[in-house]
């Protein structure tokens, strides 16, 4: 695959007056953002027909930096706002850029219900196991034993597997990679953007400052090496017993199906209403 230079992508899609970004050196959000922009570029999507939506957190600042319509909303609620945008103007394509705390803790309910409805939205989910912006509290994705400012003695709760949850709730497309898997990442986003209904691409993304530092991985490369150690490709994971998978994170494509999206269902619903009331044949 031919990759355009990063400058070309930057100049085409970012708001110059907003740069530099607020992201710390070594943060993985920039990578996931770049993959998303490359996917948009490769697919030749119209920049004026995409709305970026986000909640609160580091990842949620992304819509401010990209030169698209953007709605930076309240903590956890991005997908509920997205429901309104999409249904009020189905011609718009929605990308929700979210963090793990935002999507899976405070926003967990909106997340599963948006999936259940099969809302037409592509979620790019940055999973860094922590609340970066507020200073490194534990997130519900944090693996057991990991530390955060609110779990100074190590996380004692069980973690969420967001991708797994999205599959059981019924998403049309679900994939997870670490930001290290850039080609798979771009390809998954392209696939996600091309499908109707709810699509999710989750990225394990390094947060050296708020997360790494507290877990003996001060730099991004250390975190990436750790990801390599704990991630297991889906094909391989299938043959592994649960004990061996303890503390590991499976990566790959978990769902790829074509249930009708909410917009299509609502269009049919309007027709049915008019028919039932005798307004239309």
């Amino acid at each position, binding site marked *: 695959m031919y990759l355009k230079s990063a400058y070309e992508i930057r100049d085409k899609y970012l708001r110059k007056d907003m740069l530099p970004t607020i992201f710390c050196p070594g943060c993985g959000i920039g990578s996931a953002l770049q993959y998303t922009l490359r996917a948009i570029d490769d697919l030749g999507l119209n920049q004026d027909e995409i*709305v970026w*939506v986000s909640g609160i957190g580091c990842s949620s600042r992304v819509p*401010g930096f990209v030169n698209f319509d953007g709605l930076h909303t309240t903590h956890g*609620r991005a997908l509920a706002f997205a429901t309104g945008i*999409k249904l009020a*103007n189905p011609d718009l394509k929605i990308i929700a850029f979210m963090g793990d705390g935002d999507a899976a803790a405070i926003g967990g309910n*909106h997340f599963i*219900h948006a999936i259940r409805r099969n809302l037409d939205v592509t979620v790019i989910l940055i999973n860094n196991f922590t609340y970066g912006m507020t200073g490194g509290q534990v997130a519900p994705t944090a693996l057991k034993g990991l530390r955060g400012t609110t779990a100074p003695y190590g996380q004692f709760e069980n973690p969420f597997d967001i991708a797994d949850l999205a599959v059981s709730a019924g998403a049309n497309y679900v994939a997870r990679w670490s930001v290290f898997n850039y080609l798979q990442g771009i390809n998954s986003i392209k696939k996600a953007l091309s499908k109707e209904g709810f699509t999710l691409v989750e990225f394990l993304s390094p947060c050296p400052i708020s997360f790494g530092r507290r877990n003996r991985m001060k730099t991004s490369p250390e975190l990436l090496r750790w990801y390599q150690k704990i991630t297991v490709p889906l094909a391989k994971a299938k043959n592994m017993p649960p004990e061996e998978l303890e503390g590991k994170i499976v990566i790959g494509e978990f769902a790829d199906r074509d249930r009708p999206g909410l917009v299509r269902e*609502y269009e049919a*619903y309007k027709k049915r209403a008019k028919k039932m009331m005798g307004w239309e044949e």
Partner: protein
Amino acid sequence: MRYPFPVGRSDFIQGDEAIARAAILAGCRFYAGYPITPASEIFEAMALYMPLVDGVSIQMEDEIASIAAIIGASWAGAKAMTATSGPGFSLMMENLGYAIMTETPLVLVDVQRGGPSTGQPTLAAQGDIMQAIWGTHGDHSLIVLSPATVQEAFDFTIRAFNLAEKYRTPVVLLTDAEIAHMRERVYIPNPEEVEIVNRKLPQNEEEARLPFGDPHGDGVPPMPIFGKGYRTYVTGLTHDERGRPKTVDAEVHERLIRRIIEKLERNKENIISYETYALDDAEIAIVSTGIVSRSAVRAVKILREKGVKAGLLKLNTLWPFDFNMIEELAEQVKKIYVPEMNLGQLYHLVKEGANGKAEVELMPKIGGEVHTPMEIVERVVG
């Protein structure tokens, strides 16, 4: 345009139903809600009507999501509404603040019931007045309307949409369980009789570039809705005129918040609405809002028969609030009574307005029943 209910004639319907029909006639095409007594009938009517007029009605997973969805829809260009009651209203406070900060036009109906918490789901109260005005955090202003009859519930709903669009602000329609379920004669106008105000859209690139500026000097920026190529960025963070986050700049914060508050404050005269009854020569004034006003009118009639020079000021808007008008009233009368279905909320605003020029006495009533006219009369004549 075909309507799913008769227009250009009177009908006999409940307050909740009147609100739904008014919303459709005002141009509302997006409704998101969550079941709650006594507001569910608004949602049920919207569910029936919306698909027929090519609008959207969707049930969200909770009230937080309901108001979020209508804000999203508003930025996608639709006139949008949600309706709830106390417990749901409390959940909406977070995103009501977001709508104020991002200057998003929307209509939020709160059908008041007895609280706090689950309280008295089927019975009326006026306990959300303070929450409607001050419920969300931070410095802010918004518009709060308060109908007393089913016809007013209808008329004020249309007005709520128009004010929301005109001033780019959320508008709260504060009704109650009594009006919600009461059936009353309502005139449903022909669509051409309905005055419709639409939001200002940017006329050129320069205006579109400043979605939170003040290009017309009226404090109300044109709204560059999504999908038109404006590439608007909207955030609940403190932002400059272009919408760029400026979270530690005191000057930007003050400019933004003051403009949001002042755009309503300086248009007060066009927003505030009230009615008076026998107030011209009154020595005793009753100040009330909503359903209680109907008992108050009757009480004034009875008092006048008894030779007491009583008069009524019925507030149709609760915010912005005309403190000066209350002070003038206090200079005219000896005493002001404030009957309300709570233990004192409107009373505090009136007392502040009266500014010590007349005694202000609260007539509270809680438990679900509206004051009877005689209860008010007896309190006045002792």
